[in-house]
């Protein structure tokens, strides 16, 4: 069985609640374990907030989120027309072994997603960022 959820999201912070609610409903329908719902929400928040906060110079824009739920995997696709950003190469690796005094504030978001998903693919095509994440169940 394969099911699909598509969302068009505006670049404004209050969209986060709508994404979370949609993911929770979809996960319930598809019988996801709670930790998969958590991972998907985390990935969409971290990457979605990046697009909202850093993707565009100004103004209200829209980007697309698609979830494809299959028996053995979950695929997330995020497509945005903001500035080029490849989370695999453009995000700094945090030093997670540093002492409290030396730990910088922030910089964990993309790292979480990389650690919690099984696959991450990026391409820039026709002026858009295409990010694909896969979590195997």
């Amino acid at each position, binding site marked *: 069985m394969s099911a699909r959820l598509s969302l068009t999201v505006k670049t404004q*912070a*209050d969209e*986060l*609640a709508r994404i*979370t609610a949609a993911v929770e409903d979809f996960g319930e329908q598809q019988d996801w374990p*709670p*930790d998969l719902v*958590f*991972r998907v*929400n*985390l990935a969409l*928040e*971290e990457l979605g*907030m990046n697009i909202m906060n850093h993707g565009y110079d100004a103004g209200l824009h829209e980007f697309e989120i698609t979830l494809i739920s299959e028996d053995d995997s979950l695929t997330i696709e995020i497509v945005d027309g903001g500035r080029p950003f490849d989370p695999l190469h453009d995000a700094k690796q*945090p030093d*997670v*072994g*540093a*002492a*409290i*005094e030396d*730990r910088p*504030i*922030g910089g*964990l*978001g993309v*790292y*979480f997603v990389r*650690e*919690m998903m099984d696959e991450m693919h990026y391409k820039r095509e026709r002026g858009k960022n295409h990010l694909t994440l896969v979590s195997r169940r």
Partner: protein
Amino acid sequence: MNTKWESHDGAIVATVDGRVDGANAHEFQEALEAVIKASESAVILDFEQLSYISSAGLRVVLLAAKELRKQSKQFAVCSLAGSILEVFKISGFDQIIPVHSTQAEAIAAVNA
């Protein structure tokens, strides 16, 4: 998200429930600032009722850890559910902030 706190043998135990995300992290930060101000010797965050935390929430936890270190007060967290514990470990926070399985254990540890 809701934060409640009470004093336990000199330590303040703050219970955080619900979700801490990019939309309400600033409220979480204000709540923790009040808790730190009210604390004498130690702050314990009880995450038993916390269902979700993102990097925006962990940023606030790290700010609290730094501030408490500066004030020479102790800091601990307790009762982290599966996925919360996982993000704590992935970010290496379990190496810089003591993590206890129960509130009683955390209180005993900061009073030791």
